């Protein structure tokens, strides 16, 4: 089949569906890997995955909409997820979120014009002991203050610029 994915990922998917008693069990991992590679779950991605696991596109959409970590719109290069669940809230999670909004100039679920950052308010990310916490892509940043989150954002921006200069 023609595929939207890199040869490595396509091969991984070919194998993935063979690992479970029923093919559809591969759905959630497949969505996650696809999102990591493509950036979001576009209509063609949904169509291909539906075919790979043998369910309807509607069913794939049902599952995507169930999990807040799966998205159908592009996110920024760095996806900033700020926790405001109870531990973080008690220790200033909301201020961190507000600060990010101001700093990046975008609302919750927004993306900056340059596509570098997107922002999302999330429920507990399992880092309560070091609240308030945020997650950028797969990296955790803990015990945040407005100053430290500024620094974190600055580092990502620098990293991007360095990448672009190369």
């Amino acid at each position, binding site marked *: 089949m023609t595929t939207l994915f890199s040869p490595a990922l396509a091969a991984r998917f070919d194998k993935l569906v063979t690992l479970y008693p029923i093919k559809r069990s591969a759905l959630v991992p497949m969505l996650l890997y696809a999102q990591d590679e493509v950036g979001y779950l576009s209509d063609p991605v949904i169509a291909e995955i539906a075919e790979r696991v043998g369910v*309807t*596109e*509607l*069913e794939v*959409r*049902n599952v995507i*909409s*169930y999990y807040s970590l799966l998205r159908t719109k592009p996110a920024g290069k760095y996806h900033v997820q700020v926790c405001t669940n109870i531990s973080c809230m008690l220790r200033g999670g909301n201020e961190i979120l507000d600060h990010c909004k101001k700093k990046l100039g975008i609302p919750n679920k927004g993306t900056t014009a340059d596509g570098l950052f997107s922002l999302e308010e999330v429920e507990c990310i399992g880092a309560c002991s070091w609240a308030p916490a945020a997650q950028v892509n797969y990296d955790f940043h803990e015990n945040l203050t407005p100053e430290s989150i500024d620094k974190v954002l600055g580092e990502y921006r620098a990293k991007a610029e360095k990448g672009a200069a190369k």
Partner: protein
Amino acid sequence: MADVTLTVDGKKLSTPAGTLLIEACRSHGIEVPAFCYYPGLSLQAACRMCVVRIEKMPKLQTACTTTVAEGMIVATESPEIAQARKATIEMLLGNHPLDCPVCDAGGECELQDMTFKYGAHESKFVEIKQHRDEQQWSPVVFFDRPRCILCYRCVRVCGEGMDVWALGVQNRGAGSVIAPNRQDHLDCEECGMCIDICPVGALTSGAYRYKTRPWEMSHVGTVCTHCGDGCKTTLGVRRSNDGMDIVRGDNRDKSGINGDFLCIKGRYAFDFANREDRLTQPLVRKANGQLEPASWDQAMDFAGQRLREIRDSKGGSAIGVIGSNRTTNEEAYLLQKFARTVLATNNIDHHRTADYPAFAAALNGKVEASLRDFAGAKAILLLGNDPTEQHPGLAWQIRTSVRLQGARLYVANHRPIKLRRQATASVEIPEDGYPSLIAFLAGKPAAVAGDQNAAAFREALLKEESLLIVFGSEFRGRDIEALVQFGSTLPNVKFACLGDYANSRGAADMGLHPDLLPGYAPLSASGPFAAAWGAALPAQPGLDLPQMFDAAERGDLAALYVVGANPVARYHANPSILRNTFLVVQDMFLTETARLADVVFPAANLYEKAGTVTNTFGDLQLVKKAADRAGVRPDFELIVRLAAAMRADIKRLVSFGQRGVQADFGQARGAQSGEADRHGVWLSAQHQEPRLSPFEPFAILDEIQRLVPAYNVPRLDLLAGNDQHLRPALVQIANAASRRNLVTPSNDTLFTSGSLGSYSSTLRSVLEARQPVETAAD
């Protein structure tokens, strides 16, 4: 399974082990409320309305997911339970718009009923309700999101029941929302099952929404006029300026052979009846060549006189008659009796959609399967046809048996039909490969023999201990004979033959054939009929339908009488063929055929008359008058009037008033739906004469039951609205397998229904809406 005994509300119940508590209660008359539970669908346990107290269990339990156990002690009503249910309703009402005064479901809404019962009319919620506008998902399906109580019945019935899977649930928790499969619209079978099953007014139909209040309708249970499955449909009718309009069709009370199933045609394609362009007065072709309105007397006299002249001058052989696939048995019978005794001709035929005569001859007393048999079937062999499109009721029944009872389905077809998804085994064969498949199954040397798959198919099939064999119009004549022969070598086999329309079977059974009398009696055995009808019958076989057109073209057909058929369109006949034929047509609309007529009579449709029809499985059912339209008459009445206009003896045609007048005139018949039939039952019970009128179809049913042994089924059960399977009858047609093969399958889809379908705006709008989707796909 062994029975267990339990106590519910102090009552001792005994019920098979494995029964769900809610079902055990219901079957003993104890009502447990439920939103998400629906018999026959997977368990959801989403609503918690069914909570009950079971002794020794810590919390309230959901009766819809608890199976009964020995010694269980259950309370279904208590202040604690009422409080729990009330809290559930309060939550559901939290964002419910309470637009009951305009909601379609108002008055028959399960949420309303429960609120009424548990009194959750006050709310602790102060949040502003979130409104969403109503969405149209297809010509048929509308969704009003705030009304949805998330019971997921619609999702399950579409997926599990219909095998369409067009509805899903998106998001989660209280934010969940029902979603259609094409993001903002539906691409589906448009059956309306989801709408029907919705306990509230969240899903509504284009046909019914905002048209009426439920209590403004009368309800009449009758039979769908479309395909050959004969689903029972309960029509909601309402008085209008010129009669009774049909506003709704459903079968919520599950009273028929179809349970609560109806396809789009049975549920919504009644709309042809309400069309503005229906014929409501007779038309006669004037000297200027135009068809113009005429009075009933003028039109009848004119038609009757001309037919009489032609019969007397040229003989009956110069007259042809074409009957219908959608008129009642009584009308079909009366039509052929009229043709044979009044017009003195055997030139009578109809659009044949299955080779029923060959089937009857091959069966010759062997057992035919009722549609009901498919509900309990262990194994089914489906040969040809595509029931999903052509017999949606049968397809539903097959899917249900496979899903709920593990029935095994064997499919042999030349196309990859959808029901293969339910099949235990299937073989794909060439279009002309059915005879050799049967030969192969019967163990004779045949072309498919080398095929591995076919060998496994055969092996599995032969192991079955009972089997329903159902076949499409791919089988005719000798092929049917061979199939029945093979089938009869297997244990406990029943057969079914699939024809296309509501009374295709009845048309064939009632003798709309040039060479066969009612009950497939050959002309050579016309004795009992001649005796009963008091007339000598023409002895020679008449012309069949194509031969009539040939005769017309040669100038040998002086008159043609067409009742409820559109042969000009069906057979793509050149209109000029009929230019020298005196043409009388009875129809609802000015069809391609009616346009050529010299006289046109405005006819009632199947929803506007009483009588019986026979589905393709040989299930005889009562048709009741539901709707009415000023100016139209049932075909039965039109035939009788025409006979009268020909100065025939009406008492011979319809035996009425034979015992004098002894009936109660208090309740005039016909005015109201169903009343006439109930009245008839009552009269018989009082030993009074129910047949006072020459327009009384049941007088003809009497005669049918006397002369066609298969139709001699218990009359009272039939009149009570229960389908009655025809009795196996011995049929001796010498040449059944080698008669001329005139079967023309109409190959209707879910969204077409012959000429009639083109007059349904619902069906048309679905077809139109689907076109762009289809072209975009290639």
